[in-house]
């Protein structure tokens, strides 16, 4: 069997009803007539026995003291919730006869009337509330709240404008639409009429529901149309009533509800929780440090790589400059070697051919009227000497030799000549010097 989503327990003196609401709106009712237990907790425990209740458990009990009180609106201004609760408690203490210090109290503001505010107050002994919470906990449920079954501020029949008179053991309650409308609560005696009591409060023309949670003064009850009556002794009416409460609880419009005070956290649990939170924070710090450390490692690796690449690039550029310089030097050395070899080759060729070349040139250029008598070389160069019949002939020869002499490493000096008579004929002695310039000019 599926676990219900809400369990409501209605306690009216000796009558106890358990209502389990299913997830799809189904409702199971179970009545416990005249239970032997006398206290509220025992009655609830007896109602919860047998099958597991829903996680959420609400108790509606006529044992809860319900009243209204009037307070100065400013009296609660600036007070904490606990201080305001105590202030309201002191206000209703004389009515309920329960000391505020040992009572659980819940209140809701109904309406402002000038400088005053009207409050709906519910009160129960703290001990009883704690007992109820213990019962709920033992049965695997959580106590959503405890309230008097009366003064539910929503209609039992349809929507629209409504007002209702509720008869409960020891209490008569009149409530009407509008979340903040006043609620009239008075003592109830089934032997006496009550309609006159509420007539001034009722709105004219609006239908008035009658909720019978306790025996009623018959003449007054019969004055209400049957369709507006809700008798909790009748299952259909009871179901309608409980569904209305379940709806209010679901919509969180069932205030005020008596709720168990928050249980102080055990010291060991508090310490464990503090340690857990500290561990969580320490873990978060460690995770943060680890993540940052990993990020830093990544950044360092990238930085190292970038620097290595930069260093590599600089080293390559330096190496490139060195290689370029070495290559230039090597090229120059190779060119020098080539030039040197070429010069050597030229020098050897020149040395081999210069004497035959100049002898050939002399033989070719020598004028007819010239006799070459002497030819020798020394450290200065080559000397040509002889006789000729004209003073211009040595010059002609010198001029004619200039080309060949220059090509083979000589420079031709001006011819020296001197007239002389040989056998009665005028002749000219001459000397031409071809000065050696091979080493002197670096050729």
């Amino acid at each position, binding site marked *: 069997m599926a676990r219900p989503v809400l369990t409501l327990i209605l306690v009216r003196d000796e009558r106890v009803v358990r209502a389990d609401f299913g997830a799809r709106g189904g409702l199971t009712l179970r009545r416990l007539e005249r239970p032997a237990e006398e206290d509220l907790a025992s009655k609830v425990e007896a109602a919860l026995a047998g099958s597991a209740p829903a996680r959420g458990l609400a108790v509606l009990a006529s044992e809860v003291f319900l009243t209204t009180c009037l307070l100065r609106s400013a009296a609660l201004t600036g007070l904490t919730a606990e201080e305001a609760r105590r202030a309201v408690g002191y206000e209703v203490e004389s009515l309920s006869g329960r000391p505020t210090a040992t009572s659980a109290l819940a209140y809701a503001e109904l309406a402002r009337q000038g400088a005053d505010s009207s409050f709906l107050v519910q009160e129960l002994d703290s001990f009883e509330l704690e007992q109820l919470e213990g019962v709920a906990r033992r049965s695997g449920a959580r106590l959503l709240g405890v309230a008097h079954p009366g003064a539910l501020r929503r209609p039992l029949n349809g929507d629209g404008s409504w007002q209702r008179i509720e008869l409960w053991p020891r209490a008569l309650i009149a409530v009407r639409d509008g979340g903040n409308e006043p609620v009239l609560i008075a003592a109830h005696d089934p032997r006496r009429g009550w309609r006159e009591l509420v007539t001034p409060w009722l709105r004219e023309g609006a239908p008035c529901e009658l909720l019978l949670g306790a025996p009623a003064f018959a003449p007054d009850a019969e004055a209400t149309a049957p369709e507006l009556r809700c008798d909790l002794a009748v299952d259909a009416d009871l179901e309608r009533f409980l569904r209305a409460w379940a709806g209010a609880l679901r919509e969180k419009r069932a205030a005020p509800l008596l709720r168990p005070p928050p249980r102080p956290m055990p010291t060991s649990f508090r310490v464990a929780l*503090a340690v857990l939170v500290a561990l969580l924070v320490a873990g978060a710090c460690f995770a943060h440090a680890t993540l940052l450390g990993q990020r830093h490692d990544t950044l360092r690796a990238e930085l190292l790589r970038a620097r290595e690449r930069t260093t*590599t690039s600089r080293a*390559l*550029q330096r190496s490139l400059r060195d290689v370029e310089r070495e290559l230039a030097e090597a090229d120059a050395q190779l060119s020098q070697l080539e030039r040197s070899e070429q010069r*050597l080759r030229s020098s050897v060729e020149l040395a081999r051919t210069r004497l035959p070349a100049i002898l050939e040139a002399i033989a070719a250029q020598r004028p007819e009227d010239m006799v070459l008598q002497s030819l*020798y070389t020394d450290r200065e160069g080559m000397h040509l000497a002889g006789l000729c019949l004209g003073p211009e002939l040595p010059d002609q020869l010198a001029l004619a030799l200039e080309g060949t002499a220059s090509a083979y490493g000589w420079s031709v000096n001006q011819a020296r000549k001197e007239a002389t008579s040989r056998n009665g004929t005028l002749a000219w002695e001459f000397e031409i010097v071809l000065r050696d310039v091979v080493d002197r000019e670096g050729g």
Partner: protein
Amino acid sequence: MMSGDARQSFLKLILPALVIGCGYAVFHGAGLHKTGTQLETDLANARSREPSDLELTSLSAREGELRARLDSVSVAIAERERAQPATSAALLGERRRTEVLAALTRLVAAGDLALEASRPRPRSNLGRVPSRLLALGRRVGAAEPGLWEVRVVGSYPAVQEALARLADSGLGCIPLGLRMEPNAAGLPPSWTWLLWM
């Protein structure tokens, strides 16, 4: 709104965590954050100077190319230097003195010249050895220049022809100087050649 007790209780609950968190933030987290910021700045600076892959590849390729050229030129230089003695010897031609003199005698005889003398001449005023020939001689292993004197008798054209053939002969002897002296009438002049070998 949280009440005073609840606030105090909550604060006690989270106090150790707060101490740990604040301690971490102050003593470690701030340092980590600063380090991270510094690293990011350094990385940005380093990346602004970092060469691209293309630049590195280009530099590396250029260096390789230049090194290859350098190696090639170095090899060429070494080969030339190693080949210098052989090259120089080839330039000078046949240098074995006996062979050279024998060839010279044949050349003189073939040129219608009469050989009168052929002898070493350590010193002569007919000419001097050019410095490049001296260097060449040292390169091929000649301890000192060897001067040789040859005296022949013959006509001017015969001497000219003989010297031309000597130049083409490939013999390792080079004429440095000569002297022509007239002889008695009707006789061809005498010639003295100064040869370097």
